[in-house]
């Protein structure tokens, strides 16, 4: 069980909130963001993406798959205290550096010997850059086949309480709660990986509406609130099947 899967609704956290409106709070954060986007745009799975990127012909030494699922799986697997302690891009820096070490691109020694050295580099094949920008412009839609949804708008559904995987798209606070289907999206939607808790292959996605009372019971905030979640079909069950 991972705290990160159960973040929604966690109580006892600091208040009042103030909004940090900056996107980056340190200049170095921009560099790890750029590296992450480059990895996504060079990921070897993009050859089978809908735009059919010519990824095998791109002259990069990157040869692995890197998607949001990679980054999210790492973040969800973190020590939960570290997850709260470190800023967003500190988590990215840790996870991405470890990925490059674990997969043999760089060694810890190579990093250590370069720390604190100033450098300037020139060169590299700009076809690499072109692929990254092309990915940004054309994306990687998960939409695949025509949908054959099991549920209809208006159906009451109970959210599955599936065994936890390393990675999930099921917010923990929704487990075993009953909601109402308010929308079925056109088409089926895959996910980057098979998470082990039911998603990966293309399937319908629904919007399910929940009342605060159903989600939080007597601890619900008073007032006219409604929560909508976008859920893969694997996470839904008919409401009446569960005693």
């Amino acid at each position, binding site marked *: 069980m991972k705290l990160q899967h159960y973040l*929604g609704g*966690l*109580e006892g*956290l600091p*208040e*009042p*909130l*103030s*909004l940090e409106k*900056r*996107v980056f709070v*340190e200049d*170095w954060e921009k*560099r*790890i*963001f*750029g*590296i992450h*986007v*480059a990895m996504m*745009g060079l990921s070897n799975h993009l050859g089978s993406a809908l735009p059919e990127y010519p990824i095998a012909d791109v*002259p*990069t*030494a*990157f040869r692995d798959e890197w998607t*949001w699922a990679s980054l*999210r799986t790492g*973040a*969800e697997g973190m020590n939960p*205290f570290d997850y709260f*302690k470190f800023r*967003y891009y500190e988590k990215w*820096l840790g996870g991405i550096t470890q990925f*490059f070490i674990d997969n043999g*691109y*760089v060694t810890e020694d190579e*990093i250590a010997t*370069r*720390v604190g050295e100033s*450098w300037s*580099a020139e060169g590299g094949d700009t076809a690499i850059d072109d692929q*990254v920008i092309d990915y*940004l*412009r*054309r*994306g*990687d839609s998960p939409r695949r086949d025509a949908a054959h949804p099991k549920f209809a708008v208006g159906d009451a559904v109970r959210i599955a309480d599936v065994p936890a995987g390393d990675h999930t798209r*099921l*917010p923990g*606070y929704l487990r075993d709660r009953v909601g109402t289907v308010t929308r079925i999206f056109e088409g089926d939607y895959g996910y980057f990986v098979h998470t082990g808790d039911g998603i990966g292959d293309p399937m319908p*996605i629904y919007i399910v509406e929940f009342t605060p009372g159903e989600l939080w019971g007597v601890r*619900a*905030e008073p007032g*006219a*609130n*409604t*929560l*909508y*979640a*976008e859920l893969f079909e694997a996470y839904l069950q008919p409401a009446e099947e569960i005693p």
Partner: protein
Amino acid sequence: MTDQFAYPSDREQASADKVSALERLLIEKGVITSTTVDKVLAYFESEMTPLNGKKIVVKAWTDPDFAARVVGDTPAAIAELELPEGMAGAEGEHLQAVANGPGVHNLVICTLCSCFPWPVLGLPPYWYKDPVFRARAAREPRTVLAEVGVELPDDTEIKVWDSSGHSRWFVIPERPSGTDDFTDEQLMDLVTTESMMGVALAGQA
């Protein structure tokens, strides 16, 4: 006590050094080029910025038919506008707008990560990625909104959208009163990233 909660004294310098060494090594080894990261950043600084979202909102404020279309079929409505190429690109593949109106206020959150509509709003500000915001907004949106200056009438329905699927959500805020004679440029100045995710009203600093 453990040192779990202590930060190293060289926290930022250590990260800056590490990412610098990593980028240099990735260039040397042919993973990326010396210009890749700068080109990615330029893409977000020059083209995929909140200006795109502001234009969409102002079009919705000034064209009721568009306002209906942008909620009904967001990608098709956005494609009508003269915006940079790539509005349906990375993190914009399935954009979905929701509109505030009398008695309805929308709030977009992502409790599992930080899904954000890049082409419309650019990159997410830190508040959106804050685990405290993500945790609290799911359970007590009215309290959270009041804390950041959005005091809503008790009978205003708050619709919270948890981005756990494929869509990337954004909000068409309400047009402030007293702006009937504003130009499009003046109207755009009223629209912020925060108002397009629901933690502020348009025209609210």
